[in-house]
């Protein structure tokens, strides 16, 4: 094979490999992701076995400890529909009632949603308060 | 706004204006001179880079990555390329 053909062959091979990898990446990201849902959306459309990123505010007075498990309820940001969550794992420092949180849950027994361990993320309370890498507690 | 603040602002304006305006009162240079200068700097940078390549090749030989013949061929080629650059530099003057 003359050098020019060899080079073109290499280029085509490299591009194909890149496309295949990129395609694989794109494909798996759509199946590996967890959709974000508010409590009302979660109650309406959560399928058994699916995992979802629940976003909302911690309901005042709903925080309880039972042994190693943390129990609390999450409500819509502007609303009252709430969802009870059972959580184990690290609790971020800013976590408290009224705070906005994100937690990965799946439907558990009865009405409760069981959270994935260590998946609780609490948003910093005020505008641009924490610095660039205040990566509170996401695992 | 108090007098001190006003004074401070005025002082800042003065400094800034002085810094920015002084070059405008000097002689202007031509565009051609700039281009020639840029050409020379570029050739000098290319020459330095070529010298570095020659030294790198020597180090490659010393650390066993090149055989004697391969190195000799490479060194000769690199030096020829350096000669070319030097010649172009000379032409500029």
């Amino acid at each position, binding site marked *: 094979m003359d050098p020019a053909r060899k080079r073109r062959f290499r280029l085509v091979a*490299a591009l194909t490999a890149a496309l295949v990898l990129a395609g694989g990446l794109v494909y798996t990201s759509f199946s590996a992701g967890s*959709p974000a849902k508010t409590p009302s959306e979660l109650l309406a459309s959560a399928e058994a076995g699916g995992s979802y990123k629940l976003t909302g505010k911690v309901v005042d007075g709903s925080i309880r400890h039972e042994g190693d498990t943390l129990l609390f309820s999450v409500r819509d940001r502007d609303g009252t529909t709430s969802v009870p969550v059972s959580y184990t794992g690290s609790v971020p420092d800013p976590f408290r009632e009224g705070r906005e949180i994100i937690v990965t849950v799946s439907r558990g027994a009865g009405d409760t949603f069981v959270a994935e361990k260590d998946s609780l993320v609490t948003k*910093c309370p005020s505008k641009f308060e924490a610095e660039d890498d205040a990566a509170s507690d996401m695992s | 706004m108090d007098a001190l603040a006003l004074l401070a602002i005025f002082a800042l304006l003065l400094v800034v204006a002085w810094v920015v305006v002084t*070059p405008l009162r000097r002689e*202007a240079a031509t565009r051609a001179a700039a*281009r020639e200068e840029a050409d020379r700097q570029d050739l000098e940078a290319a020459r330095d880079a070529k010298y570095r390549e020659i030294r790198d090749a020597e180090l490659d030989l010393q650390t066993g990555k*090149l055989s004697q013949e*391969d190195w000799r061929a490479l060194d000769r080629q690199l030096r020829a390329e350096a000669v070319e650059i030097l010649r172009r530099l000379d032409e500029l003057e």
Partner: protein
Amino acid sequence: MATVGRAALLIALLICAYGVIAAIYGALSGRREWVESARRSVYALAIALTVAFGILEFAFLRSDFSFAVVAGHSSTSTPTFYKASAMWSSQEGSLLLWVWLLSLWSSLVVFLTRRRMREVVPWATAVLLGYGAFFTALLVFAVSPFETLAQPPADGAGLNPLLRHPAMMIHPPMLYSGYTLFAIPFAFAVGALIAKRVDAEWIRSTRRFALGAWLVLGIGIILGARWSYNELGWGGYWAWDAVENASLMPWLTGTAFIHSVMIQEKRGMLKVWNVSLVLATGILCVLGTFLVRSGILDSIHAFGASTLGVPFVALIAGMSLGSIALVVWRRGLLRSEHRLDSLLSREAMFLLNNLVLVAMCFVVFWGTFFPLISEAVTGEETSVGPPWFSRYTVPLALVLVLLSGIGPLIAWRRATATNLRRTFAIPVTCGVVAFLALLFVPGVPQKPLALAMFALAAFVAGTVGQEIWRGTRARRAMTGEPLPLAVTSLVRRNRRRYGGYLVHLGIVVLFVGVAASSTFQTAHDSRMSPGDTVRVDGYDVRYVRATAEVGDDPSGTGAMLSLGAVLDVSKDGRHVTTLRPARSFYPSNSTASGPVEWLVGGEPTSEVAVRSGPLKDFWTAVNPDMTRFQEIIDQGDKAVAADIPEMQQPMVAFRLLRDVIAPNYVENPPPAMFRMISSPLVAWIWIGSLIAIGGGLIALWPAPDAARRRATATLRARVAQDLGRA
């Protein structure tokens, strides 16, 4: 004072506007005095911004609460050290810091290139001042740091306690310095494309700036990771969070550029690629600056919709479209001069390295922006988590490590195939020996990826060691120097090469630390009362007693109350260490709090207790059960509010806290949640970064003029011989 600050910012904006026009006019007309004036504008900008920065910083240090920013982010109870850094915890202050740093680095660059690149500098200056104009315009019209309050409050809101850590003081300036330093190669790339000077001189200057920016950005990223590990209650150093990723992406493309630009230097190839990398890196830096304050990505940093979203998107879009247009316009200039001589060359290895790095950047980019992408495509916002990121970056990292071991063993242009066996023998043996040895370590063979990383790391270490050894030996053969002197002069005369090798070694040590600490970690959450013992990874940890400190914060962060535990850690009966994790409570600033609540109702933080060793880290954090404690505080609030006149309430509340509530916690501690993590080789992450930083500094250090002249003189003589002959 605030008016002076506002005026300084306005002056800065005017300087930028003037400078851009002067630079472009000077470039187009060829009248150098206008270019000179534009260059001077950069200095003037630095002066004006230093004044503004100084005023604001001074206001923070003086706790001047008539400044809205100071009232919102600092307080009298914030320790002085952190008052200074509180400035950049605010949106306004951080933007001012960014543009101030930009003006400083731009001034440095304009000074260093005062006699060089005369055709490129005008355009580059225009770009840098254009950046400056954007940011100062934001500060003048959108988010002014010099807003004053008609009624200054008696005390401010205080610095978020999470940020009261030395690393947090340095991390933003470092990160911003990295971002702004990358603006310079960006500006020079734009300038070089317009002036049609994408040549050796451009390479020489750009490479230097890019290396410096890469180094500083890397330090910023590591500091952030260290802060996360030592300060936050989750025990990790990297979460693949959107903002972390935003700083990693330009670092990856910057690394690619540093390597591929050497190919352009030697063979005149990859011009389009290199220029695109530099432009992309600059854009990614602005993207990173934007992400942290935009709220477009739902992460821990959802700061709500900010007013700055639209201008930043416009800037990024403008930069992207402009860059593409520029490259297309000058594509004739960017044609390759040569082709790759051989696949068995260091150039080919660098090319592969670039492909891997860009692939990693793409993975990180895709994962970071996936919530937006998925929303656009499927209508539903979906995000991917750390496992997805690791799945793709880990194999890519393994390939990267492999390449960093192979690259140094292959010569430039074309390696001698027959020498390969001898060159690869020792490093490959190191890798194989490490692999076999680790097969016998329990738990390791079950984790093939970690095992592969360890073996490859040994391979790279072997490569670096062999290179240093062979180079030293060759040098001693020539000069007869004693060994230590030979090593130092070898490194000194080949800074780029050996500095680079050291960086590779450092990065590889870092990867080993990451691989070991994430794969072989043992984490344990438990609820304990004093006297309880728990077993974690062979260590027996006993909760000895509870502690409560009031008002006297040993870590200097201004905590009012610190509830902690004394943990006794032992192994096989032998005492290993005593750890004292705690949870610190800070004054709240809400007027709705009762007097006792006011003292401790602010953001709590975890005071992590870590025992770091070369082989293993034992990390602990405590989270006391606050329900009962909260009741006691509520009771205290009621008691104080009912019986004590308002003036004396703070004093009485404090005494109550100190003399009753805190001792009560020590004597009757409720059970507390403990998180304990035993991770191997975490220290290697920090050590590896130090090695890499050292290597970067060596590579960056300019050779002293005398040495350089000597080197070129010898070569010139040899080459002159050829010239004479030819």
